[in-house]
C-alpha cells in the first residue's frame, strides 16, 4: 500500500479521536474491514506493543503501519499520530477557555461516550481471535477487572499475562 495513502487513512482515525483508544474502531474499519491490509491478530499485536512501550497508547498506529508496509508504514503511522497535536497550538492561542463552555463540553462528552461503545464493538473481533479457550477468557476477565478497579500500569498486566502464557507452555500445557 502506498505510504501516503496509509498516512491519510491513519490520519482519518487519529484526527477524529480524542484519545489513543478512540482511533481503534475507525482504524480497524479502514484497514482490517474495508482494505484488508491488516488482520485482527496484527491489530491486537500492535495494541499490545503500544501498551508494552512508553508513550501514549495511540502509538499503536506506528506498529500497525509497520505490519502493513514496514519502515515506511511505521513512519506513516508516526506522522499520523503526531499531526493532530499541532492543532493544539491554535486551540490554545485563539480558542482558549471558550472550549470549556457547557455546550461544547457536552458535545465532546457525548462523542467520547459513543467512542466507548465503538471500542467495545472493536474488541469483539479481537476477542474472537484471541479468546480460544477458558484460559484466555480468564486472562481477559482478569485484565478487565484490574484495569477497572486499580491504577496498575497496563504494562504490568501484559507482563503477567505473558509470563502466565510462558509458564503454562513450559509446564506442558497450552494457551
Amino acid at each position, binding site marked *: 500500500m502506498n505510504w501516503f495513502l496509509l498516512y491519510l487513512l491513519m490520519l482519518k482515525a487519529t484526527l477524529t479521536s480524542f484519545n489513543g483508544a478512540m482511533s481503534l474502531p475507525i482504524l480497524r474499519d479502514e484497514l482490517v474491514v474495508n482494505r484488508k491490509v491488516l488482520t485482527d491478530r496484527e491489530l491486537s499485536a500492535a495494541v499490545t506493543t503500544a501498551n508494552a512501550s512508553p508513550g501514549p497508547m495511540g502509538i499503536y498506529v506506528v506498529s500497525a503501519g509497520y505490519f502493513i508496509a514496514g519502515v515506511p508504514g511505521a513512519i506513516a503511522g508516526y506522522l499520523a499520530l503526531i499531526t493532530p497535536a499541532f492543532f493544539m497550538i491554535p486551540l490554545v492561542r485563539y480558542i482558549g477557555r471558550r472550549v470549556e463552555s457547557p455546550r461544547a463540553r457536552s458535545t465532546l462528552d457525548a462523542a467520547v461516550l459513543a467512542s466507548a461503545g465503538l471500542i467495545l464493538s472493536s474488541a469483539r473481533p479481537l476477542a474472537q481471535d484471541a479468546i480460544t479457550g477458558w484460559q484466555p477468557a480468564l486472562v481477559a476477565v482478569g485484565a478487565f477487572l484490574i484495569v477497572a478497579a486499580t491504577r496498575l500500569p497496563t504494562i504490568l498486566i501484559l507482563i503477567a499475562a505473558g509470563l502466565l502464557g510462558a509458564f503454562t*507452555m513450559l509446564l506442558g500445557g497450552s494457551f
Partner: protein
Amino acid sequence: MENNSKTGDIRALISGRVGERPSLPAVARLFFQIGNSTFGSGGATMIRLGQTMVERGWIGPAQFDLNFTLARVAPGTNVLAFVIGAGYAARGWLGGIVALFSLSAPAACIVVLLTLAYQRWSGSPLGHSVVTATAASIVGIIVGAAWLLAKPRVAKREYLRTAVLVLGALILSFWIPPLQIMAIGALLGYCWPERQT
C-alpha cells in the same frame, strides 16, 4: 494572569512563566526523560511534566491547567496535544516541536523494535503461547478502557444518557461506520446536554 509588563515579554504573559526561558536542549531533556519513563496512563505523564515545568518556572499553574483541559478536547492523543501545547507555552513553536519529538520519537522506535520481536518470535510454540496470553489480556484492557471512559459519567449519575450513547453506538456499529456514529453521538450530546452539577 500576572502582569509581566516590566519584562515586556509577551510570551511570558501568555505562559505565566515566572522563571527564565528554558533552552531547547533543556526542553528536549525533560520531555525525553519523563515521556519515555512513564508507562500506561497519559494522565500521569501530563501531570508529571506539568508539575516539573511549573516547579522550574517554565509555565505558570494557570497555563498548566489550561493545557491539561484543552488537551482533552484537542483531536488526537491527549498526551501529545498537551506536550506540544506546554512546549509552545515555554519556548514558542520550536519548543513545542522539540517537546513533541523528544517524547514521541524514541517511544515510536521502541514500538517498531517490539513489533520486530513479535514478528520474529510469535511463530515459535513459546512465542505463540505468550502472544495468545497477551492478546487475551489486551481484550480485557480494551474493554476496561471503554469502562474508564464511561465511568466518570456513571459516577455523575448520568445513567440514561451514558447507556443510550454507549449501547447505541455499540448496536449501530453493526450497520453504520464509526465516524458517522461519533458524529451522531456528538449531535446527540449537543441536543441533550449533560446535567450541570
